[in-house]
């Protein structure tokens, strides 16, 4: 178990290193720099700025400095927000993004469970077809369209919920649904097909043969055994959540990390871009590690590999 986890942890570190290096290199080959503006700065001021941010040093030295900083949790200064460091910005925005992600995940799982169980229990009947149809709709609907549609109906027409900003519970409803819809559809899909496979197993026939009531067979025997294969496929689910969150933050004007990523790209705020990408990657790595841990706890065969 320890060896397995150590291996996964090492793999996670490798992913992080690749991301840091990739963003570092990409952002430095890009034409133009963070301080190119409409009005050309006098060369001596430019030289001062370059020196302040160590941009005049050779790349390798900058890279080593950055890596050393990251190892100590220092993601460097922001070029755009002069009085704040990247770590400050992330510290301020990460809780918001995390809360949104967790809400959406809870929404997705709570809704997907009954849908998937109903679909599997009534396989090939209208309930099943309806669930599959809904799930396909959910997978095909881009976040920005769902968000726009929800805002139009529930904020502009009906006036039930706030259309933007973040803070009160009623401002969280629409973003949660928008972000949760796609993972929910995805989860319903996976759980349904896993349940269908389990329901064809011998031990289900045995359970039925010994006269167990159908709900008992379904929930006690089938659902439990169907969750294991679904667990391994949760990694891509987290990836959808992360990718979706910065679109949802944009649409609903939520002050999260994703919004800063978008403006950092337009502003060429290189340390902020790298920092936010790194944090997103770290979240994905941790989520995958957690999934691996759950999986190896549930299914001992995995640990051997």
């Amino acid at each position: 178990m320890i060896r397995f986890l150590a291996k996964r942890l090492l793999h996670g570190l490798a992913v992080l290193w690749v991301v840091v290096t990739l963003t570092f290199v990409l952002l430095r080959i890009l034409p133009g720099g963070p301080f190119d503006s409409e009005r050309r700065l006098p060369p001596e001021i430019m030289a001062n700025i370059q020196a302040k941010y160590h941009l005049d040093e050779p790349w390798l030295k900058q890279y080593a400095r950055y890596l050393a900083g990251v190892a100590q949790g220092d993601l460097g200064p922001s070029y755009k927000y002069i009085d704040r460091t990247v770590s400050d910005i992330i510290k301020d925005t990460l809780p918001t993004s995390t809360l949104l992600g967790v809400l959406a995940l809870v929404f997705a799982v709570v809704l997907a469970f009954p849908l998937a169980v109903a679909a599997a229990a009534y396989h090939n009947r209208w309930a099943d077809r309806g669930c599959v149809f809904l799930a396909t709709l959910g997978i095909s609907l881009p976040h920005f369209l769902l968000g726009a549609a929800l805002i139009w109906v529930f904020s502009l027409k009906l006036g039930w919920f706030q259309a933007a900003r973040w803070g009160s519970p009623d401002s969280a409803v629409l973003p949660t649904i928008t972000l949760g819809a796609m993972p929910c559809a995805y989860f319903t899909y996976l759980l349904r097909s896993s349940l269908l496979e389990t329901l064809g197993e011998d031990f289900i026939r045995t359970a039925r043969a010994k006269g167990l009531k159908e709900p008992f067979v379904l929930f006690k025997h089938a659902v439990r055994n169907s969750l294991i294969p679904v667990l391994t496929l949760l990694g891509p689910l987290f990836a959808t959540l992360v990718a979706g969150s910065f679109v949802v933050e944009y649409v609903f004007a939520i002050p999260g990390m994703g919004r800063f990523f978008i403006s950092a790209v337009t502003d060429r705020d290189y340390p902020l871009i790298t920092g936010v990408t790194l944090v997103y990657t770290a979240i994905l790595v941790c989520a995958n590690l957690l999934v691996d841990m759950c999986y190896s706890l549930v299914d001992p065969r995995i640990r051997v590999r």
Partner: protein
Amino acid sequence: MKLFQRLAGEFRRNRLLTASLAFIALVTLAGFLAPLISPYSPGGFEEQRLLEVPSAAHWLGTDELGRDVLTRILYGARVSIAVGLGTALIALLIGTFYGLVSGYAGGALDSFLMRVVDIFYGLPDLLIFVLLSLFLGRNITGVLIALGLITWVRFARITRGQVLQAKELIYVEGARAIGASHVRILLRHILPNIFAPLLVTLTFSIPAAILSESTLSFIGLGINDPYNAWGTSWGTLAQDGWRAMRTYPHLIFFPALAIFLTILAFNFLGNGLRDILDPKRN
């Protein structure tokens, strides 16, 4: 060829599949023929007819510069289809080659190549896509290559898994026994045998690419190339509509519908293909 005959038979029986395929054909054709069938020229302004609701002259209305929305959507179809198909093909080429080599070679090379794929899998792909497209250029070609460079790992994993199974089969052993070269075994014996799962993955990669491209164009980080002759991305059209949604909802509604229906049709097609080609089904 037997595969295609079987597919044709299944398509005739399944109406949802036929409808999806017909819609995809329609969108592709609309994109190709946009200059011929669109009622107005793509850059045609009418200063007197700004932000009009749908009418007989402008079926889907006009935007804030008096451009015909239907024309813009028809031209936008080219962008979406080109990005979807182009990405899927690039990913297919890179990923299949990678997977074939990895699975067939086995051993240390295989574990090294798969370690690389694992790392790619752990990346937040939409963010990496943004960075890559900044580097490759925010035009159709740049976006297409950037997306392809992210999507190929899917093909690599699936191909490799399939090759691992296929290379143990009796007829591959037979081919090896009569002295067929590695390239011949891979291309003539293994590749045709693993065609079905690749086709399914290909079908699902197209809507995923269209989704990513339109999403990023919507938030202003995607295609930004207003002077090209191809047309404007549906995501950008939706963004234009989004800003005026309160007063002119038709401006976001039609591009949104185009994106949604196209992605939906591809997903239905993918689901159908997967069910038909599933070896466990028969």
